[in-house]
């Protein structure tokens, strides 16, 4: 087991001017499950490959534990890429399928058997060790593949979108298994996905990247509650947060027919005469007619207990889509117009020029360890 440190690690592809990963500073605690998430081209896979040794690091360092591995070949880094290849060999038993790489690595028979048994116990495969893969279900095969990585006792597991080729049902099931298994094993895990739901459900912490730059790294709860900037606010959460550029008014922000109250010192730190106001769908409430924003309802999606309401409004002459979550028993009807306003203390304000959160509360820098999550951050201190 070990910590993983990206120390100003930068990857610049030859012939390009903008780094694919730009001065990544990230400390991953021993035993932590960290998810790298972001849209296509954000640098998440490149970061993982830098850790794996598959990408050159142009500047900065990468450490596993205290060991600088920046120039160490992949096979000597003591990492396991999970699901690189999970095709199982038909003539070999489940035990042999799990242990063959150890045989190649020259590990003695008794120890191989021991490690395979331990992994099988964790994976609930003990009763199947002598069977051939043909006799296994899809989920069990997936677990055998996971067993291949586990028996190697690596310091770090690396997973690059390992679930992308599974069907939806197996994906959810395997997601839960991976998360619980890596925690039981206590092996530091770095997991890459483009799916923010996957990121939020699996990670101890989630690092959000965009254009090669780390936007925020935090617990799923904090990312959701206090996004550090407009990008994170819009990226995390499904359906996405409503983001509206609104004029600053006396004592608050002009929200349609009402002024949403905001402390003067918060507004005072903003550049310009507008701010970006973010409000999550579940934090919108219906307002008396004439107050708040007038929203024309386009579609109502009934989910039983709740309903999602998709509509649009006009702010300063331009159209904005608005999503709200309301009680499923009394949703407004499509085609009608309703007035909405944010619930008190449930808005997120961002500077329209810098994109940064106004009013604090948003940690935006790496943590040293899981236990230190509440400690003041290095970057904040600086």
């Amino acid at each position, binding site marked *: 087991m070990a910590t993983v440190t990206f120390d100003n690690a930068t990857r610049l592809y030859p012939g390009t001017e903008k780094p694919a990963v730009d001065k990544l500073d990230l400390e991953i605690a021993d035993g932590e499950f960290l998810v790298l998430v972001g849209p296509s*081209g954000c640098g998440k896979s490149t970061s993982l490959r830098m850790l794996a040794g*598959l990408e050159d690091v142009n500047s900065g360092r990468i450490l596993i534990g205290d060991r600088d591995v920046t120039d160490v070949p992949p096979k000597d880094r003591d990492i396991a890429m999970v699901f690189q290849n999970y095709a199982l060999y*038909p*003539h070999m038993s489940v035990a042999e399928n799990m242990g063959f790489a150890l045989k190649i690595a020259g590990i003695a028979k008794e120890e191989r058997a021991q490690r395979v048994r331990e992994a099988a116990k964790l994976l609930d495969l003990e009763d199947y060790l002598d069977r051939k893969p043909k006799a296994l279900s899809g989920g069990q095969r997936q677990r055998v593949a996971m067993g291949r990585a586990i028996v190697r006792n690596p310091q770090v597991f690396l997973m690059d979108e390992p679930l992308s*080729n599974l069907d939806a049902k197996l994906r959810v099931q395997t997601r839960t298994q991976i998360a619980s298994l890596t925690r039981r094993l206590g092996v530091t895990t770095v997991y890459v996905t483009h799916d923010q739901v996957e990121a939020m459900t699996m990670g101890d912490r989630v690092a959000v990247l965009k254009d090669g730059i780390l936007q925020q790294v935090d617990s799923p709860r904090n990312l959701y509650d206090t996004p550090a900037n407009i990008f994170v606010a819009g990226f995390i959460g499904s359906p996405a947060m409503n983001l509206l550029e609104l004029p600053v008014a006396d004592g608050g922000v002009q929200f349609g027919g009402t002024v949403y109250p905001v402390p003067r010192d918060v507004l005072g730190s903003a550049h310009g005469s507008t701010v970006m106001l973010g409000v999550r769908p579940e934090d919108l409430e219906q307002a008396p007619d004439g107050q708040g924003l007038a929203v024309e309802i386009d579609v109502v999606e009934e989910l039983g207990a709740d309903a999602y309401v998709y509509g649009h409004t006009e702010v300063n002459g331009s159209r904005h889509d608005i999503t709200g979550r309301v009680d499923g028993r009394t949703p407004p009807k499509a085609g009608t117009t309703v007035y909405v306003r944010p619930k008190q203390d449930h808005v997120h304000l961002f500077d329209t020029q810098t994109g940064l959160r106004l009013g604090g509360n948003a940690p935006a820098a790496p943590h040293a360890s899981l236990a230190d999550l509440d400690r003041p951050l290095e970057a904040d201190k600086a």
Partner: protein
Amino acid sequence: MDANWHNEPTDFGQVGKLPRPHNGGAATVLGSLNITSATTDESLLDLPWHIALEEWPAKNLAALPRGISRHIVRFAHLSGSVIAIKETSEHIARHEYHMLRKLQRLDVPCVEPVAVISGRHTTDGAELDPVLVTRHLKFSLPYRALFSQTLRRDTLTRLIDAQALLLVRLHLVGFYWGDVSLSNTLFRRDAGAFAAYLVDAETGELYPKLSNGQREYDLEIARVNIAGELMDLLEGGLIEDKVDPLATSERIMDSYRKLWAELTEKESFELGDRWRVNARIRRLNDLGFDVEEFSIKTTPDGSQIQLQPKVVDAGHHQRRLIRLTGLDVQENQARRLLNDLDGYRADNNPDLDEEISAHAWVRHVFEPVVRAIPRELAGKLEPAEVVHQVLEHRWYISESQRRNVPLAEAVQAYIDDVLRHRRDEAAILLNPDDKTARLLAENSLDNENDNDDE
């Protein structure tokens, strides 16, 4: 670099635009199909896309051994050829489709992508996984078809060498494979050796240039996978116990590194040793590569030369044969045929122009041999491979009979004594009841006296 498959918008809505006779029940579910393809083979639409691949009717399927795959893969007949169909997610299918197209353009040996088909539904409206369709390589053999109880030891090393050469070629164009294995490769006979083709590009990515870490990791994956595949064959009793999976898989490292070094390494020598430039070119030619660009630097005092190949191109002998004869064959076949062609010129009219002499060789040697093969034996081997084997056979019987056996006589002897007794390699796929196909399907290629590498 993330997969970027949006840059080639070749999708087209085919439904209703192409003639589709007698399609009956399937027509309603075809309505939503989305086909991405560079070619417009309308018979693609006649396949039962509304049925999950696992349940396809036998009449659509071609009997071909299924390799080890994490996906459902089936082989089907399409317009007289065989296609491989893989059910997977749309993202993966499109990524692989475009990756294979790019590799084809880069002239790397790989299977030909035919189409991505998404929007599949059963007649009940249930969603089915998208598929990637590739064309099966004629005369190619999965590695399992090449291993048998009578496997000659050197067949294995030749396979590994072919795999190493393929990996070098992929790495030279900046392709990181990510899942190198014998299962993901197909082999074609190549005048006593094998030519390897990439079959599965699912995990692959193209980069401007690979890092050493990427190359090393690909090699490590190759080593582990090949050892695993050989262990599996041992476990299944499909290869003799004498084969050592570990030692065999180590060979790919060695073979790859030697070739990579020869193709890319810098060498320094005294100014007076300029012959070493030509020597290096000749060595690369012998390995089957042309040098498109060299970097040659001299030290400030001018006493030393530093030489490094910058751009190398596989297919040295292939290109020369095409230029002289128009024949497009594998690299080693080309080397073998060029040897004969050069010998023919020396024997007949050394002063004749090379092109004219090559033309005469095609007319008097290559074509008569190919024409002499009875129609019913034409599916045994590729024409170029047959010509190579005839030339070998001629040499063999000439030596044993201590006389110069005429070509016509050698061809007849070859047909009667060798070719007639070979298994049918083009037809492994096409005749479901062929003995070899059956044996392959059962994964037990025993008791086959197969002159693999004659």
